[in-house]
């Protein structure tokens, strides 16, 4: 038996590396992974929004976030993983906006209440002053 030439050995070694890589690449291209992290992050953000009562103060944004996460899950079912990832990210951004706008609405309500309280106090005092003078 003749031993293989050095150039043939190099070729075989390259083949042993290239084939699995090619197979892996093909498999990845053919079937992208489920965007689990994006989906989980979006669901967590929606849960946060619900927790802070965004349904009362930012109903449109919360509703949109729910629609987006629902669309993302549908896309997963349809094996449209890239689209599913985008939709999940959009759902998260929408839910975070809902939380931010809820905080703003609550802060404004607190301030309005304080302003009203101050105004009532001042009015009452001025009325008493008017009565007594």
């Amino acid at each position: 038996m003749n031993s293989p030439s050095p150039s043939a050995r190099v070729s075989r070694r390259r083949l042993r590396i290239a084939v699995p890589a090619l197979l892996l690449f093909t498999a990845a291209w053919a079937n992208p992974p489920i965007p689990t992290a994006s989906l989980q992050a979006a669901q967590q953000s929606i849960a946060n929004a619900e927790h802070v009562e965004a349904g009362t103060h930012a109903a449109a944004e919360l509703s949109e976030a729910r629609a987006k996460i629902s669309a993302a899950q549908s896309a997963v079912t349809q094996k449209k993983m890239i689209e599913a990832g985008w939709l999940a990210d959009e759902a998260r951004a929408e839910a975070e906006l809902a939380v931010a706008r809820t905080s703003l609405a609550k802060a404004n309500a607190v301030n309005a209440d304080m302003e009203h309280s101050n105004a009532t106090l001042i009015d009452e005092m001025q009325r008493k002053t008017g009565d007594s003078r």
Partner: protein
Amino acid sequence: MNIHSTMMSRSLIAAAVTAALLAGCASAPTKPAGSEEVRAKLTALQGDAALATKAPVATKDAELAVTQAEIIQPDLALAAHRVYIADRKVDTAIAEAKTKAAEDQRAMLSEQGEKARLDARTHEADLAKSDAMTARAESAEQQVAATQARSDAAAAQLAANVSEQQASELQRQLEALQARPTDRGLVLTLGDTLFATGKSEIKSGATANLDRLGDFLTEYPNRTASIEGFTDSMGSEDSNQALSERRADSVKRYLIGRGVQSQRLSSSGRGENAPVADNETTAGRQQNRRVEVVISKAEGSQGAGR
């Protein structure tokens, strides 16, 4: 032949590349749709002095997202996704900045509220103090009023006493004058001792009663006096009439001389026509020779007092 074919292939590739470059130069790539609007919104936030520094982390996230959204992207769906994300990040940054601004404003509102409450308490304390002072003043006024009322009551009592005293004094004086009440008023009869027979001059030393009458009329200026002269039936009627008038006038003059105003006095003669006793007897004629003074209250005056 092989060399020639290789050269042809290279020429074709070069031509294709040139054509692609030319095509690229002919239509300049534009930023993804909507990215400019998102950038404008972010720029407005960053330029707002009241909000720019309120939400640094969210604003930085928004900046990164907008930069991503502005990358020219042949995949339109990816470009639209990035613009969507950037838009929401910018909106989130704006909301967070406004929330922080509202929270910062709260401290000022709280301070205002404290000041208003303090002012209200101060005002209430002032009012209470003022009310107490008013109450004290009212109490003092009431005391003064009560004192005044007591004083008025005492004065009224005194006046009543004085009035009683005056009434009793009047009664005493009238008794002293021997005046008698009649339908015409109090009638004081001055007997014939005032005048000498046939004369109308008042005799000196016989004026005690007249003096008391003068004092009475001076003391009670609301009284008037009607002086009437009478005679007995001796002599002619005309001479008796004239004598009675002169005697009445004499009494009137005497009273004026005692300080009684003339308008309070009237005089008249009744002659022999109103005897009170029998002219046939000496005693009766003596009674008929008289002067009567009818004392009455002046019109509009009340009571016995002055």
